[in-house]
């Protein structure tokens, strides 16, 4: 069984985000980039399925500009077999990404597509669902456990009321949640070995998909700084302040 894992390069989660002076976006120049943590979990899940003999090949795909090759190399060093970079300098939004992935699925014929449930930069939380809809495949989102048997996959989902267990027939799309696994660190010799694994670059135009952005960003601003609170002496004071100052009761 082939597994396709879609990964996105995002600003590393340790970096303190800076908004550009002209408010058109966040600063990405000279900022440390990493693989989106949820995608790393998706990749780990795929590699484990391969190690347990269930998957035969793990292919990673990423969309964007050339520098994301570094992130793909890390994915190869982690254990993916080969990588695909769909190159474009157009800002890719969830629907465009889903369409591009649909085209890749048509070429590669994977039985399972794994994605992070969301990317930590725009937090859209849409790509996996859109891809499943475009492909007309079953979807299991926010997976905290994945069990494959024969041509069925059982996905445990974390939902507000607890855990939901669903069963999907393959092929399927699964998006991963935080608690699915703890991704491995890359062993040093594997970084060297990853250099020899195939990384194919494909221009987005070659896939013949309309990726024109449909969402327009008006302005990007830092959230307002929360004012420091005060300590009240007792309940009565709290109630008075809520009534007279905050005017919420």
């Amino acid at each position: 069984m082939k597994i396709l894992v879609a990964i996105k390069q995002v600003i590393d989660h340790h970096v303190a985000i800076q908004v550009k002076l002209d408010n058109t976006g966040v600063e990405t120049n000279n900022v440390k980039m990493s693989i989106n943590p949820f995608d790393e979990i998706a990749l780990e899940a795929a590699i484990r399925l391969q190690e347990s003999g269930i998957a035969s090949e793990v292919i990673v795909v990423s969309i964007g500009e050339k520098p994301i090759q570094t992130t793909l190399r890390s994915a190869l060093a982690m254990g993916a077999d080969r990588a695909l970079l769909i190159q474009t300098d157009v800002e890719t939004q969830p629907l465009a990404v889903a369409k591009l992935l649909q085209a890749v699925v048509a070429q590669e014929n994977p039985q399972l597509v794994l994605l992070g449930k969301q990317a930590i930069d725009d937090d859209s939380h849409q790509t996996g669902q859109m891809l499943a809809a475009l492909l007309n495949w079953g979807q299991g989102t926010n997976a905290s456990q994945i069990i494959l048997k024969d041509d069925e996959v059982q996905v445990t989902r974390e939902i507000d009321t607890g855990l939901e267990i669903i069963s999907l027939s393959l092929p399927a799309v699964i998006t991963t949640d935080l608690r699915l696994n703890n991704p491995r660190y890359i062993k040093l010799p594997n970084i060297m070995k990853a250099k020899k694994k195939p990384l194919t670059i494909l221009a987005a135009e070659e896939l013949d998909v309309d990726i024109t952005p449909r969402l327009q960003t008006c302005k990007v601003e830092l959230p307002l700084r929360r004012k420091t609170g005060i300590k009240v002496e007792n309940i009565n004071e709290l109630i008075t302040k809520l009534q007279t100052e905050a005017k919420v009761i």
Partner: protein
Amino acid sequence: MDFAWSEEQLSYKESAIHFAQQELREGIIEDDLYEKFPKERWQKCAEFGVLGLPFPEKYGGAEADLLTTMLVMEGLGYGGKDNGLLFSINAQMWAVQHPIQEFGTIEQQEKYLPDLITGKIIGAHGISEPVSGSDAYSMHTSAKKCDGGYLLNGSKTFVTNAPIADLSLVFAMTAPEKGSWGISAFLIETGTAGFSLSKKIDKMGLRTAPMGEIILQDCFVPEENRLGAENIGAHIFNNSMEWERACILGAHIGAMERQLETSVSYARTRKQFKQPIGKFQSISNRLAEMKIRLETARLLLYKTAWLKNEGKPAKMEAAMAKLYLSEVFTASSLDAIRIHGGYGYTSEFEVERDMRDAIGGVLYSGTSDIQRNIIARYLGV
């Protein structure tokens, strides 16, 4: 110096940090207290690929260049907290593996390097003796030629890894009348008749790096276990010291960065006199000094590594790097304690341990005084 970090080099450092944060942070307080050698962490480092990093692929290494190797050490020192373990590992890499790779026969390399790199065996390097330290070549241990090999007598002390070693690189006098031109190096396996390891030596810092004595009593070492030609021991020792001085403190750069980050965050959160202590110049000046020491030490380390990478002589640079890195790590460790006040003095905060670990650095591989002598000699005084 002419280089910029490549994406690949940076990815090495990143995975080192990732690894160390997961595997080299927990349990160090207890291991330090009870002077316990963390065999499991050593094994994890071996599996992760640390020990083989700059060594040939055919022996299980990754053939990384020296700058990459130093970046990885930095990452391990930054992400982890076990200075002792990293010291132990580096002692083996530069003072055991490296001499075997450079001076060993193919048979010796094939026999020992793969096992040292995978962590199957551990190596130690013994030159210091109870009466000969800085003046290492005034050693008493002798190796008398006999049928098929040598008979060794004497003792070695302060030997890092000795209590846990499977293989020791030992220096002995083959021709005492020739002084430093009469020393040879030998590879001795633990278990060899006449070879014994004393119980470990209790010490101030680097307590997860065990230290012990080697006793040689009519210990027969076959000819094929001599490392390099007869009487070139001083050359082998000098060569391995140049590597060790250049590289052994790389991990401390990372430790200094970790220490600085911890100190900055403490200075921002700890309040006295109704303000964060970082607002007091006495604290912020100290932090600024720590930052300058860190960055200057980095440059010296990278320059030395770059020279060695290019195959250029770096004896004086190695001595400067060794001296400077160890001294600034000590100075900054003390500053970190001062910034943390009484909490910095407690073992729970894991600040004081760096101080105890740092002091070893101004002694091993030649004391700071000896490094100054070397630098002065290269200056032509």
